[in-house]
């Protein structure tokens, strides 16, 4: 039982990392209808860049987080401006292939600039051990979990209540109609890239805190993508929930069945779920009046 509880806890922690990336997928998809396959690579690049700046100013953890958010936002705006905006009017498929190209370039750039050594973040948080009944968690893990919960709630509230968030949903639903409302759709699309990349920056810091920074950390994008699909690609909160499910499933399947299942368990789940609910668990279904 203790084994089970600890596997669930570890799944929850990794799920929260997947979740932060999955929210990035969902924010961009919800506003622009584009799946940004570079989400994991953006996380890695933003983290490495922020780390460099952070080391330069000897930043404590909270400052590193802030730097990652700022760098993430700026990098997201840059990507949108340089690669995505000129593609407006091209087919969705071309735009998605562009994001795949960006992903591969970023994977190559990181080791060129910062080497291939993996390095953990040193923070006092890491050495604190907390016990919750049979479950043990480290301070950094709780920190990541708390950030994940806070950002999920913020993303949900943003799309549900804020004027800009609702306008983003409107733009995704019907671009022409949104334009006729006087919504500056292009600006919102740029903003969605900024938000997604800033959240990815937070994910990167959490990942480096819990595991380490490494030039293969982009691979968690492969776990986050099924998570986003599972929860509904157009629902940030759903994607976050999907990530928790995928994280726990990955941890349990690895713990009970065998090593190597972690990577595929998420995809097994989405195949099963999408057969029943093709728009994901929380995705918006096309409405039909009868």
């Amino acid at each position, binding site marked *: 039982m203790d084994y089970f509880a600890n596997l669930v806890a570890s799944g929850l922690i990794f799920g929260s990392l997947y979740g932060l990336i999955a929210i990035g997928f969902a924010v961009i998809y919800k506003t622009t209808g584009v799946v940004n396959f570079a989400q994991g690579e953006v996380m890695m690049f933003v983290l490495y860049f922020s780390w460099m700046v952070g080391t330069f100013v000897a930043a404590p953890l909270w400052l590193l987080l802030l730097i990652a958010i700022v760098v993430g936002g700026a990098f997201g705006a840059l990507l949108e401006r340089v690669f995505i905006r000129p593609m*407006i*009017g091209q087919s969705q498929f071309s735009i998605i292939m562009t994001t795949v190209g960006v992903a591969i370039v970023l994977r190559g750039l990181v080791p060129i600039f910062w080497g291939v050594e993996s390095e953990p973040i040193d923070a006092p948080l890491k050495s604190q051990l907390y016990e919750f009944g049979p479950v043990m968690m480290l301070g950094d893990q709780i920190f990541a979990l708390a950030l994940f919960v806070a950002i999920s709630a913020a993303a949900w509230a943003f799309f549900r209540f804020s*004027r800009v968030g*609702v*306008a983003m*949903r*409107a733009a995704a*639903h*019907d*671009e*022409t*109609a*949104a*334009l*006729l*409302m*006087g*919504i*500056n*759709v292009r600006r919102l699309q740029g903003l969605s890239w900024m938000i997604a990349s800033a959240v990815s920056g937070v994910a990167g810091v959490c990942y480096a805190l819990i595991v380490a920074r490494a030039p293969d950390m982009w691979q968690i994008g492969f776990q986050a993508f099924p998570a986003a699909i599972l929860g509904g690609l157009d629902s940030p909160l759903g994607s976050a929930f999907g990530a928790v499910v995928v994280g726990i499933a990955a941890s349990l399947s690895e713990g009970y069945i065998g090593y190597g299942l972690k990577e595929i368990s998420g995809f097994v789940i989405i195949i099963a779920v999408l057969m029943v609910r093709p728009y994901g668990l929380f995705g*918006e279904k096309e*409405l*039909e*009046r009868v």
Partner: protein
Amino acid sequence: MSGALEVLNVQVFYNDVIEAVRDVSLTVGKGRIVALLGANGAGKSTLLKAISAVLYPEEGRLIHGSIRYDGVDLTARNADEIVAAGIVQVPEGRRLFETMTVEENLRLGGYALAAAELGEGLERVYAMFPRVREKRHAVAGLLSGGEQQMVAIGRALIGRPKLLILDEPSLGLAPQIVRDIFDIVKRLNAEEGLSILFVEQNARLALAVSEYAYIMENGRIVLDGPSADLAGNADIQEFYLGQAKGGERKSLRDLKHYKRRKRWLA
């Protein structure tokens, strides 16, 4: 001209090869109701999209000509600037945000407004359409066609536009609802001095509601004039109102009919 929309020699292409509108000019004076008539594919909706600067999602481009409103050139402006200038369009088929509630739809219509103005705008629309107030928490996609059209018009009116453009407001609605919608349009024009430009397939209705009308065929304006004059025009009566001279029905094979119509486009 102050307060007038002036469209001058506009030409629109889709995908850079298909010419949808050629050399079209029209004017909507301040406080006027103007109708735009024509068959399917004549370019009416394209012209309205050009005015609202929403051609680009459909690969359309304004190649030539200018669009001015209240003396200001709006030709190369973005859609949000057109709305800010006071020109708001209710698109064909209403295009509500169907998964959102009625009130969310209305609030989006007031996207650019300050909070106080938005609240005032909502109240004004609810007062105008009590039915919309009743349904304000309902999901927009589940309303009836007539209710959806009221929401669409209400959404356009939130920000107090100066010129309201309606693209086929009667599409898919029952005749009684269509009359209600046009009564509202006429009232807005009479009571608030709102200028109106609308597209309509039903020529009889359009000529009855409007003061001035333009007729489009194959991307061009082939005839225009005060609506009362057009309603009495023999060609219009024959081609659009379905009345033949002397009250007898004409055969579709009538060659003169074809020739006369062809002369318009020459």
